[in-house]
């Protein structure tokens, strides 16, 4: 990684990933209304995932603002998720959990790669490097907890 521009672009991708998680969790959550029996454990998991993604998005947006770049509004991503959701929507609770696991694992991998690239780079950025890495590491650890939580629910149900 070599410039503010590239860093801002990667943070924008992080924001979109969080927006995708948030929007898909919301759709999954809504689809539970039509399910024969509501599952409180999955409901709470999805609610938590959507709230956590929104919080991560806000933290990334602050960093992007500091780099004088722009974020993609949530409404735009939500519309794209909605437009494509028909072809990728889960069929049942197990599918919802797998999708949620993929969300958490993907986010973890993204932040882990980004932190690795930042630590390997000697580039200086328009924002404080230590603060940037601290924020990304904190978010990464929350994603790791998310992977653990979904895995636990999946194991309990099997």
């Amino acid at each position, binding site marked *: *990684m070599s410039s503010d521009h590239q860093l801002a672009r*990667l943070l*924008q991708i992080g924001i*979109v*990933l969080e927006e*995708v998680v948030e929007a898909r969790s919301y759709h999954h959550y809504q689809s539970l209304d039509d399910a024969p029996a509501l599952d409180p454990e999955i409901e709470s998991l999805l609610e938590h995932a959507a709230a956590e993604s929104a919080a991560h998005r806000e933290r990334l947006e602050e960093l992007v603002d500091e780099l004088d770049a722009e974020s993609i509004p949530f409404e735009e991503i939500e519309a*794209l*998720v909605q437009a*494509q959701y028909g072809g990728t929507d889960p069929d049942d609770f197990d599918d919802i959990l797998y999708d949620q696991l993929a969300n958490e694992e993907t986010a973890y991998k*993204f932040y882990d790669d980004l932190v690795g690239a930042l630590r390997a780079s000697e580039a200086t950025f328009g924002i404080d490097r230590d603060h940037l890495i601290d924020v990304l590491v904190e978010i990464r650890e929350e994603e790791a907890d998310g992977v653990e939580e979904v895995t636990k629910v999946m194991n309990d149900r099997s």
Partner: protein
Amino acid sequence: MNTADQYVKAIYLLQEMENGPASTGALADRLGVSPASANEMIGKLESRGLAEHEKYKGVTLTDEGIVRARDALQTYCIIERFLANVLSVDEFRAEAGDLEPVIDDLVAERLDTIIDRNAECPDCFDPETDACCHLDVPAEPVETEEQRAD
């Protein structure tokens, strides 16, 4: 996308363009590396059963290498389409090349859930323009006589 995947993708595209083996020089040019680095990686790809190298002719992907290259090309196409269609980046080709090493397949798969990609992908990829054929590639600026004189 790891370095090996970037190489098999580049070999695949060169083979398509040249209708035959990819020369080491062309491969090094396409990836912006030295011929020595390209040779070293070709050796690694050979030992992993992904490519075969014939002296004076060039490098050819094995069936396994082709599968790997098409997967890598699909990931690249997702990155280009995401940059162009979601983030409205004009210079999506150059930026996709910069981001390629840092974007994992898992991440690309998730981004793919919001992209209206065609079923024919990665056959939609045009090696000449280095872009998905469904994306509008900005025209190259034409150099004028005066600029050439400078």
